[in-house]
């Protein structure tokens, strides 16, 4: 579902670049026909750039949170608004176009980045293009620009928050489709209570995919998510009836194994390890994974087990060691 959603978004964004590119092309033609040759450079230069970005986004998805195509398009538009010679009579009120900029920025980039580029453009407009206007006109322009910026910010944040709230309430991780951490916490509380009440064992398997951050950094979030999805699907197919799979953090999956002893967990661990090694393909080389079995200890409550889960992850080991060293250094000083 997430993929279909991003696919639709991508096509709409590509359409926007194509519209902007066509607009620039039309402007270049108009400037050419009108004989304002000094104003032809930027529209003629930006037309192929924007059309190229449109075609690129139509075919390929961005690997990054801040889409480089969006940044390029916004920088191109910003440069156009700041440097385009003011020779056309129809563009005597050209700064009106500048007021659309924050609305486009919030559509193309995440909130923080769009705020930054919009404010930069405002500063540029006030410093370069509107300096001849009276102070009053400059202030009115700035307030109107900031009003549009805050309205676009409000819209984007509001719509994202609604979606995020629903995502949280589904109890599912959007990438893997496994149950999420909130669900795990409530389930762990229930399973620990049940295990203590029935005197039956409870085991867990922590599956860490150590290459996930590297794949994300080098090949982008789409490849990293695909890698994680493959691993989680295999984990789900390998576990037994009654076992539950969760996504604990970015690179860790957790299998909750009710009524399972340490021996049962070790058998499942071996089976899962071999399946992962044989079937999951990582673009960066042989799979680097560790699977840690844990068993509920007698007298242990769910908070203690939760803490032990956190302390058993290999990828947080260096952080935990440095925290401990810091606390040890701080304690003699006291």
């Amino acid at each position: 579902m997430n993929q279909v959603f991003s696919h639709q978004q991508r096509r709409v964004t590509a359409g926007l670049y194509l519209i902007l590119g066509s607009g620039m092309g039309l402007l270049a033609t108009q400037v050419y026909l009108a004989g304002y040759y000094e104003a032809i450079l930027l529209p003629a230069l930006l037309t192929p750039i924007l059309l190229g970005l449109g075609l690129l986004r139509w075919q390929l998805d961005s690997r990054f949170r801040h889409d480089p195509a969006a940044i390029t398009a916004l920088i191109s538009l910003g440069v156009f608004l700041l440097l385009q010679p003011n020779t056309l009579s129809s563009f005597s009120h050209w700064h009106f176009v500048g007021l659309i900029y924050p609305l486009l920025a919030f559509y193309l980039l995440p909130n923080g980045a769009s705020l930054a580029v919009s404010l930069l453009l405002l500063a540029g407009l006030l410093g370069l293009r509107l300096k001849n206007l009276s102070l009053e006109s400059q202030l009115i322009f700035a307030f109107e620009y900031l009003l549009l910026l805050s309205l676009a910010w409000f819209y984007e944040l509001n719509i994202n928050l609604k979606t995020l709230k629903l995502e949280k309430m589904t109890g599912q991780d959007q990438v893997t489709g496994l149950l999420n951490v909130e669900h795990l916490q409530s389930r762990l509380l229930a399973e620990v209570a049940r295990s203590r009440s029935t005197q039956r064992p409870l085991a867990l398997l922590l599956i860490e995919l150590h290459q996930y951050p590297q794949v994300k950094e080098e090949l982008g979030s789409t490849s990293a998510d695909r890698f994680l999805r493959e691993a989680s699907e295999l984990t789900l197919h390998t576990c037994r009836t009654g076992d539950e799979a969760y996504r604990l953090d970015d690179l860790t999956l957790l299998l909750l194994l009710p009524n399972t002893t340490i021996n049962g967990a070790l058998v499942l661990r071996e089976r899962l390890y071999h399946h992962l090694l044989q079937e999951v393909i990582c673009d960066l080389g042989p799979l680097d994974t560790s699977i840690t079995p844990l068993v509920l200890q007698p007298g242990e409550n769910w908070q203690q087990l939760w803490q032990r889960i956190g302390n058993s992850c290999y990828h947080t080991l260096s952080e935990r060691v440095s925290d401990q060293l810091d606390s040890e250094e701080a304690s003699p000083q006291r």
Partner: protein
Amino acid sequence: MGLAESIRTSTWCQFMAGCFFALLAGWCVYADKHTLSLIYLSGTLLFLVASLPTSLIKPAHRYRLTLWVFCVYTLVSLALLLTPEHYTSLTFLSLHLAFPFIAFGLLTFHTALFFVLGFALLANLLVMLHLEGSLRLTFLAAIWLMTLLTSIHSFTHHLRQQNLKELLSRDPVTGLFNRKQLINDVKKEQQRAQREATSLGLLKLTTPNNEPWTNKQIQDVSQAFAPFERLYYFSSQRLAVLLPLATDTQLDKRTQELIEVCPDIRVDGSLCALDALPASLVYPDAEQAREGEG
């Protein structure tokens, strides 16, 4: 809520939008542009109403009030587009480009879409009467670009929200697990009970006179169960509790305990068969109709 956390919510940008509307309204009044000040005043009022806390006004009432104020805002915007003086300043004219952002930000998708498309059509007609040349082309292209972009963007989010609503495992109001989750959990617990050779009980709790459950009642009831005995929201009048490991004797005991905690509620308990879903879960409406006839 800390400062950093509040920035991630819509509170700050709502406050900022309200402030800029108020500031520009003040300036318009000062500059004797009284007609123009009306749109900024209605914008200020709109964000003021939308940010009213739920302790003061129920969310449903707040939404209705927001809708009314938004109608006023739309009418003022259209009235302004009728007047030729409004076209003298393109800075003020640009506010109409943000109309879809306000509509989709504050209203539900279908209502907002109705307003946005209606406004874009009327604005198009009015702008064609008052502007000319490439300026008219630029303004119309901008207004339709914004309208289409925001509508498509909102539509994709709306579709996603609809899909997510179908995947919800909890009831949004009470926060309890919902009927879909109950059916999934019953299937899982049946398999587990077969594997572990135990039984499975199901309690149905109904309020007297079929009144909706209150938060206080839900809290009282939830305290009577162990953490592994989950409480589910079945309908506004009915809750269900799944009791793994329950036997007939335990079910009777639990029913008595519950009646002691909440004397008004009706409790129906039964052991579930382990090879099929209980009919009351699969056909809840049929069971309720039969009870009504009874």
